[in-house]
């Protein structure tokens, strides 16, 4: 199995030259489109109910369409918050705040000009919102979810433009423009930039995913300085799983309809959703396993940094799939950045995004 992207796989399907047995791919980018095109094989008959019970419950719908399972995840990527324990301690805090208001207050204390040259040397809060790729989708998605919102209604119409989405977008913009606790450069940052800034202490708190970023930040020489916590909800009384979810992507196996070994491929796909493959994913690969049973392993817990936090966020984590995801991500990125950059008010940015998505037939 080689490395392919979302362009070449459809080309191969169209040309009937695709001979892959299984594809290891994030369902968020392709699930409804590939299923509608008839390229994937349902996997229900190889997934026993007890295996499904071991998967994080809110992640399962994004692997299914019309009651059929098409993807089996072996890894999830819940969003988490990274913070510099030493800098938070210097500001007089022992733990992270419980809501957005508290987060802003802490970020204000952390934002400072250390040498008095009129230049901010340490920013309170950072996130990544580069216009390329899926960065804005993930960052805005995280704020949207912890505000209690979601991207799509059951009928496929947009829900991200509701009050929760507007609050999320306004908060992202306010962090930069009103509270001035976030560097304006966030609209060009990808997670690598944010990782560098957290490493150096130029940003005290930052949000990102839990794959490469977690591995870098939890390793030497920074590991002892970095703390990790779940994303902070809009209000302190909101309960995860009940009032809101955490944004969490993930990668899974699907089976190619044109495979010459469909049954064997289905068994392989089912295997990666089980205990053994997920244990390997966590204990050896240091990714966040998609099977919650493996988190009981003491060895895995000793190997996987912040395993308890990851389990908590992954248990309440979810992701939504939709048609035309690349186009959706492009328009979303332009709209969100225009609000952060103050080219549009958050309300106008929301209206523009929905109008543009309708014009380009995203929904």
């Amino acid at each position: 199995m080689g490395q392919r992207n979302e362009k070449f796989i459809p080309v191969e399907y169209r040309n009937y030259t695709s001979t892959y047995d299984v594809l290891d791919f994030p369902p968020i980018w392709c699930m409804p489109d590939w299923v509608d095109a008839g390229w994937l094989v349902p996997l229900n008959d190889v997934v026993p109910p007890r295996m499904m019970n071991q998967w994080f419950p809110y992640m399962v719908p994004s692997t299914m369409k019309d009651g059929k399972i098409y993807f089996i995840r072996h890894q999830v990527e819940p969003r988490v918050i990274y913070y510099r324990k030493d800098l938070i301690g210097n500001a007089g805090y022992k733990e992270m705040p419980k809501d957005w208001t508290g987060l802003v207050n802490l970020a204000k204390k952390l934002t400072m000009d250390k040498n008095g040259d009129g230049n901010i040397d340490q920013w309170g809060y950072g996130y990544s919102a580069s216009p390329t790729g899926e960065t804005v989708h993930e960052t805005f998605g995280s704020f949207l979810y912890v505000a209690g919102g979601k991207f799509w209604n059951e009928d496929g119409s947009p829900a991200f433009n509701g009050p929760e989405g507007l609050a999320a977008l306004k908060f992202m913009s306010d962090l930069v423009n009103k509270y001035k606790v976030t560097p304006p450069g966030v609209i060009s940052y990808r997670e690598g930039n944010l990782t560098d800034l957290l490493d150096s202490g130029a940003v005290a708190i930052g949000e990102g995913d839990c794959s490469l970023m977690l591995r870098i930040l939890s390793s030497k020489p920074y590991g002892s300085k970095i703390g990790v916590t779940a994303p902070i909800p809009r209000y302190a009384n909101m309960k995860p799983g009940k009032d809101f979810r955490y944004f969490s992507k993930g990668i899974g196996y699907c089976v190619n309809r044109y495979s010459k070994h469909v049954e064997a491929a289905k068994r392989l796909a089912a295997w990666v959703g089980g205990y053994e493959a997920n244990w390997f994913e966590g204990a050896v690969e240091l990714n966040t396993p998609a099977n919650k049973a493996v988190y009981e392993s003491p060895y895995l817990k000793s190997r996987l940094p912040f395993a308890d936090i990851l389990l908590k966020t992954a248990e309440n984590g979810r992701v939504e799939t939709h048609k035309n995801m690349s186009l959706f991500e492009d328009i979303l990125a332009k709209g969100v950045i225009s609000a952060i950059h103050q080219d549009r008010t958050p309300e106008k940015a929301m209206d523009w995004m929905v109008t543009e998505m309708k014009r380009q037939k995203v929904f």
Partner: protein
Amino acid sequence: MKVYPLRNRVIRIKNYSDGSTGMKKTFTRIFNFVDSKFCYISTLPALIVIVLVVGFPTVLNFYMSFFVKNLMRQATYFNGVGNYVSLVQDPVFWSYLAHTGIYTGGSVAIGFTLALCLALALNSEIRFRPFFIVAILLPWMTPAVSGCIMWRWIIHDIYGLLNFFLIKLGILHQNFFWLGNSFTATLLLILVDAWYRIPLSALILFAGMQRIPLELYDAAKVDGAGRWYFTKNITIPLIKPEILIALVIQSMFTFREFGIPFLFTGGGPGDSTETLALYIYKVGNLFLREGYAASLSVVMFIIITIFVVGYFKAIGEKS
């Protein structure tokens, strides 16, 4: 050994004819044929490659531009000039075309002017000329990816060297986010592109200057002419073919450039530096609308052709 004259050279070839007159005649005939058609024969391999990797895809692309081809929806049907009508009605296309025009115009103007200055400097009696030639080539030797990442670090809003020096000099009082402003992002994109293209243009122009006979300068010197006179009345008029080549190459390459805008600004802030090439990439590769992307490519091809013809008309005929 027989001796055959070949143009103004003389080459010696072995006599393979075994002494038989018939063979000798056949061999001579083949040799004469090869000699008379040498330009075609030597061009043929390159021509085959160009037809296969440029000509065929271009024709196919033109053909595809009349179809709706959506990979994800499995839709392929003839659409006549529908894609072109959509393109004309697409406000985003006009906006990105304008961005591309500003980007290309700015890069060519700055890049060409600086390349000309550098070439003139190299052509003067400058010391350590080989060193400067190598130094000028450095941007060209740097892969575009590394160059763009380096420039992003230089202008970084928190760590950037540019902010550091401007604050030290008292020009700025606070770090400035250069890529967060449409004007500065566009300007920097133009400068980075120009930086990347200067070496080739400078070399082309310098090569042109090297073939100007020194007697012309000596004669002008006798008449008391200065450097400005040399440049205006001797150097520039005599390197018009090189100027034409440099302008054509730089305009074509910048207009269709994908890598530098993608890596340096990503089209941001918002979409204020999004160019036509970036848009074609997104439409074709991410949104999987191949027919529409093909029509955008055809329009880009036509615009570039107009550029080239325009330059030849403006400079080529005069020179």
